[in-house]
Each structure stands twice: as structure tokens, then as C-alpha cells.
């Protein structure tokens, strides 16, 4: 009886959040690259296959934590800091110049943006760009995700992603926080 209870709750929480796809099939990776972007290059729709796979880059713990690793490895920190921003805009404040949708974030990383955001399309695989995009989205999310990564083994500059770090900034409260936004495009 306890077993059944346990099983059901675990199945609900589990689903695909723990799957680890170490290497994508080349055709799938190809298809994942074909996002439909609005002419303004803001907003759009992910390819069909993204939904078929069950939105693997938003709720899958492994992909999100890989994204976090890529965030360091590819030097995102040098401009965006730990999410607080620097010469690039902050993610923590939940303000997105190009909107909060995953496709926009994907496009920003793959194709670059004006005023200094380089294109990473030829430096990373599609899979990695998606992972990174999913991760960046969690930094500015004001709802904690259980699949999101927790802190790293280093100095802490803000609450970890699974604790919805942006929530603090969204909350205007008596003394609102206004992080530096960096240059406006």
C-alpha cells in the first residue's frame, strides 16, 4: 500500500526529468536547429520535434545542469556575471530585451545580438545551445523548478537556480532592487 502510494507520487514527479540523452541522433539535432523566428527575431516557435521529445530543455535536470556547466565553460560569466549582468545585461531581474521565450534565448545564443553578444552557433552543438538556453531561462525565472540545478561548489553570489533567484528582484517590496541593466540595444 505504501509502495503504491510511493510509486504513484514518484511517477508523477519523475516522468522524464531524469532521462540522460548523452548524444542526440544527428537528424534530431538537425531538426532541433530549425526554429521559426518572427521577423523581429524576438519570439517564435520551436520546431515540431521539440514537443515530440517532451520539451527536454525546460524540465530535464541533466540538460539544465549541463547548461549551467556550459555557461561557465563558454565564458558567459565574463559579460553576464553570475546572472547579475556586467557589460552584458542581467538575467536575474527577469527583464528580457528579446522576451522570455526559450526560442528567443536560443536565437540570442546561436546568432548573437547587437551591442556585443557574439554568435555561438559555430562554437557549440545545437544540443548544447538548447541546454544553455534552458539554463539561462531558469536564472531569470521567478518560479523555482525542482529540476533546476542547485548551487555550485564556489562562492555564492545569489540564491541557486532551484530557489528562483529572480523572485527577490521581481518582488518590489519596500526597498526594490535595481540591478545595472548594461547598455541598451
Amino acid at each position: 500500500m505504501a509502495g503504491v502510494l510511493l510509486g504513484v507520487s514518484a511517477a508523477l514527479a519523475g516522468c522524464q526529468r531524469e532521462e540522460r540523452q548523452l548524444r542526440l541522433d544527428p537528424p534530431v539535432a538537425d531538426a532541433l536547429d530549425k526554429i521559426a523566428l518572427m521577423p523581429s527575431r524576438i519570439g517564435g516557435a520551436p520546431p515540431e520535434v521539440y514537443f515530440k521529445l517532451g520539451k527536454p530543455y525546460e524540465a530535464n535536470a541533466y540538460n539544465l545542469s549541463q547548461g549551467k556547466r556550459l555557461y561557465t565553460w563558454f565564458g558567459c560569466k565574463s559579460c553576464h556575471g553570475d546572472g547579475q549582468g556586467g557589460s552584458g545585461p542581467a538575467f536575474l531581474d527577469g527583464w528580457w530585451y528579446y522576451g522570455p521565450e526559450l526560442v528567443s534565448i536560443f536565437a540570442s545564443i546561436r546568432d548573437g545580438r547587437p551591442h556585443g553578444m557574439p554568435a555561438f552557433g559555430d562554437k557549440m552543438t545545437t544540443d548544447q545551445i538548447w541546454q544553455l538556453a534552458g539554463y539561462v531561462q531558469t536564472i531569470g525565472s521567478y518560479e523555482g523548478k525542482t529540476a533546476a540545478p542547485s548551487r555550485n561548489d564556489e562562492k555564492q553570489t545569489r540564491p541557486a537556480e532551484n530557489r528562483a533567484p529572480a523572485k527577490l528582484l521581481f518582488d518590489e517590496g519596500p526597498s526594490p532592487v535595481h540591478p545595472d541593466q548594461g547598455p541598451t540595444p
Partner: protein
Amino acid sequence: MTRPATAPDTRDIDIERTRLTSTLAETWKTPPGFWGALTTVDHKIIGRRYIFTAFVFLALGGVLAALMRLQLAQPEARLIGPDRYNQIFTMHGANMMFLFAVPVMEAVAVYLVPLMVGTRNIAFPRLNAFSYWIYVAGGALLWIAFALDMGPDVGWFAYVPLSGPQYGAGKRADIWAQMITFTELSALAIAVELVVTIFKQRAPGMTLDRIPLFVWSMLVTSFLVIMAMPAIMIASTGLILDRLFGTHFYNPAEGGDVLLWQHLFWFFGHPEVYIIFLPAAGMVSTMIEPFARRPAFGYLGLVMALIATGILAFGLWVHHMFVAGLPRLGDSFFTASSMAIAIPAGIQMFCWLATLWDGRPVFKTPLLFIIGFIVTFVIGGLTGVMVASVPFDTQVHDTYFVVAHFHYVLIGGAVFPLLGAVHYWFPKLTGRMMSETLGRWSFWLIIVGFNATFFPMHILGLEGMPRRVYTYQPDLPWHGLNVFISLSAVVLTAGFLLFFINVLKSARFGEVAPDNPWDAPTLEWATTSPPPSYNFAMIPVVGSLHPLWDERDTLPVADGLRTDRRELIVTTLAAAEPQAREASPRNSIWPLLAAVATTIMLIWSIFSPWAVVWGSIPIAVALIGWFWPKGTPEDES
């Protein structure tokens, strides 16, 4: 509640024998059916369940081992990928250690210790029921998670930072950590029950020097559990907090310490292997007597060796950390203390050999397993002394040499005695004998299969094959031995299969056993097989270490216990003089409800820290129900 079967305050001497047994049966019974099964607090029913469940986990862990051997049989095999392999070896290790080896020993004790000390139920019987439910929940958590691709993949000792928030993505490491909490909770509960049972419920006259050796071993083991398990519960709670809540116990950048994990883990982890081994040693000391047909040689030496091992067990943990870069002096100290443990182990070995030497051995299956144990455990002990030396360990650390070593001590030192014990005590549990023919066949298949499987692993390790690799390249010189090992594992599996067949077959069709089929000297054989719900119609009075040999025909008994309610005798700690009549709790559903509430809280707390707050409310309700005063006065002395 159930109506007493006789008028209140009827004593056992007031009524004649047949009425006595039927009234006792009425007072102590577990009602048949589903409800009875959920509410029972009878240590025999719970012990049997516990043993059965632990063997199910042994079989499941065995399946994982077989899968690993299948994968490793050839280089670059494609059967299991790296991610799944990581989960499989972690599941195998964690399952074998936490869901099989420790619980099965405790389970045997839950069944046998009250019988061996001549009492009617274990102390704190409801806690005992609670312990079983918690154990099952922990096992289910681990295996269901594995089925959902959420099984832990960080090795059975889950080192940080690999299992920490940075590298342990998802909830896999949390599942491991919380499974630990479940199993440690259930083990701690049993340890407390056993200590109290052994200290306060021994039959009158069972002074300290008349305690059967298995009971002694469980006493020492229980103290080890009580002192070792809190360390790992703290460690795993710290890990969950780090991962979920962002604390910094193991984060060096914020003042935490990675080595803290290793210290806490192995401060538990080394005693853990004695928590598994000491009960097995106790089983051997107890079983050897009827088969050698003489008292065990050196009772005092055997008891002192158990206690010495128990104390020394807490002074060796750093030998698991020789490559972690600790100060030289520390390394030397722990090398010395690790080698010192060979002394009490050697004392026990020589006592067993002397017992056999001087006895007239009867080579039945249990004795075969004892001999298999002696040979195998000595080999494992010798490689143990080898890896206790720092330079050698630095070479073979994390290679298959270590895998070979710990399977020699774990399987040789604990599983063989356990299998012998199953053959030996099977008639006590079921009233039927196990088949000797099948028993011999399974023994030989297991002992040959085991050595052929694990001995070559020493060589693989010396050749540099690391443990925990999902495959290896064809140009490495490991292929031949790996094929051989995998083929031998088939023989080993066949042996275990035969053992399970023997158990299932004998339980239904085995020869009906007399009350004392082996002519054994200890009290559990003084009652029927299987024992009635009240164990003994009259509590026996013990006059020697071997009551059934020395007072073969007329075992004296104590009288004066009430029959209309559950009563047993409380005796003094050292001299076992009767002190009081004590009431033993009746059946209750609250332990199960408390276990369900605890399970919900513990699993929920993997996902949200608020679970600890809200989840405590149902637990509190269940505990209040459990301890609600019944209005019956505490009995007088």
C-alpha cells in the same frame, strides 16, 4: 479490544496445561486475515517478513550483478550504456549493503533473539512493526526510482562533490540519501529493541556468561548500530540540505569541507562491515556446537573477541581514505589499527578450528557453509591486511582488487554463514527440514562459482582494471579473465537459484521437523517448531550455558505470570534475577500509520524543505494515536 480469555488476574499455575496453552494462544494471537497482518506485533511474524523481504532484495541485487557481468564479458559491449551502468553498480552496492546485508542480520535477530533468551516477545514490539514498514518503504523508494531512470548513480558511498549539487544533477543522489535515512531509521529501531531485550528480558538464570554466542554478537552489533548510524544520517541529511536548500556543509569555497563527507561516511561505513560480519560470526559460533558435537571452544575468548572487534571497528575508518592525502602520521596510525583487527578475528578463527578439531563433526549443509566461510573469509582477511598498507593500497585503490577483496569478506564472511543459518534454523521457522541433497549441490556450486568469479578479480586489479567502468577496450589485456569471470558467475547464479528452489520446495514439501532436529543446546529449540505465538508456555529457567544439553529432560520453568494479558518476565542485567512482571503491548495499526506518515514526509522533503514542516503534522498525529494512554495501570513488580 479483545476480551481476556480467562478471568482477570488468572495466573499460569492456576490452570492445567491444555487450558494454559489455549488461553495463552488467545491472549497472544495475531488475528488471521489482512487486518491481522497489518497490525501484528509478533516478533516471529515480523522477523519472518523481514527475512523474506531481505532475500528478495538479495535476488534483485543479484540480477543487477548478473547484468554487469554480462556487459563486462566482452570489450566494448553495447548491452548497457555508461549512464545506466553507473546506476546499476550503485544500485547493486547500495541495495546489497543497506537493503540486504544489514537488514537480513537484524531480521534473523528479530526472529531468534527473543527465543534464544527465552522470552515471549521482543522489547518495544510496536517499534519493531514500525521498523519493518519503514524498511520496506525505503527499499521501494530506491527500486521505484531506479525503474523511473532516477536511480542513484554516484556509487554506494556517494562521495561529494560527485553527489553534491554541482555534479549530481537531478534527484538521483537525493534518492540515495533518503533511502539511507529509511534504512538507518529501521536499523536503529531494531538495535534499541535488541539491547533492551538482551539486557532486561533474559530468562531467569541466564547470567552474562550463559548468553548464547549469537545473542552476544547481536548485542555488540546493536551497540555498533547505535553509535555508527547517526553519523551517516547526519551526513546524508547535510547532503540533502546542500543539494536542495543550498547549505554549504561540503562546499570548501564557503567554509565547508569535502573530506568531512568521507570522514562521516566511513566513520559509519567501516563499523558497517562489522555490523554485517559480527552477527554472521555469532551464527557460526552458535551453529558449530551441534555439528561439532561439543561446546564452542573458548566461550570467553569468543565473547571478548566480539567486544574487541566492536570497539576497534571505530578506530579504522581512515583506511578507506589513504589516497585522499591525509597526514603521514594519520596514515600510519590507521594502518596499524587496521592490522590490529586481525587479532580478534584470528582468535575467533582459532576457536572455531579448535572446536571442530576436538569435536566429532557431522558434515551437514550448515557445517559445509561454515567451512566454506572459514576458508573464504581467511582469504578475504589476508587481502584486507594487504590493502591496509598505504603503499599497496595506493596501487590497487579503486581497482578490481578491491572488488575482489570486499566480496571475499562480504560474501565469504556474511553470506555463507547466513546461508548455513537458513538451513539450520529453517525447521524453527517453518516446521520442515530443508533438503540435504539440494543443500549440498547448492553449497558446491556456490563455493566453486564464487571463487572462480572473484579470485581472478584480484589479478585483474593488479593488471590495472579500474572498478566502476562500464566497458574496456579490446587492446587491453583484460578480456580473457573477464570472459572467465562472467562464465563462473553463471555457476554462482545456478548455486543461488538452487538454494532458492530448495527453500521454496522445502517450505511446502520438506520433511516434517521434530522440535529439536539437530539436538542443539540453545533455548530456541526448547519450544515447538514453529513456535506458538507466546513462544514458551512457561518461561524457562536457565542453569547453564547449554540448557538443552545439561538439563535434557527437565528444563525448570518459572511460574506466576498472568494468562489473561500479555506478560513477560523482566530480569536484572547481570545476574538475570527476576525483577518484575511486565506487560507487552498488544497489536496496533498505529505503527503502520506512523510509518506511512514518515514515508510521505521523507520523500516529500527531497522536493521541498516545507515538507519537514507540513509533513510533521501527520507524523505527530500518528504518534499521539500510538502512545494514547490506555487507562490500564502499569503492573506492579
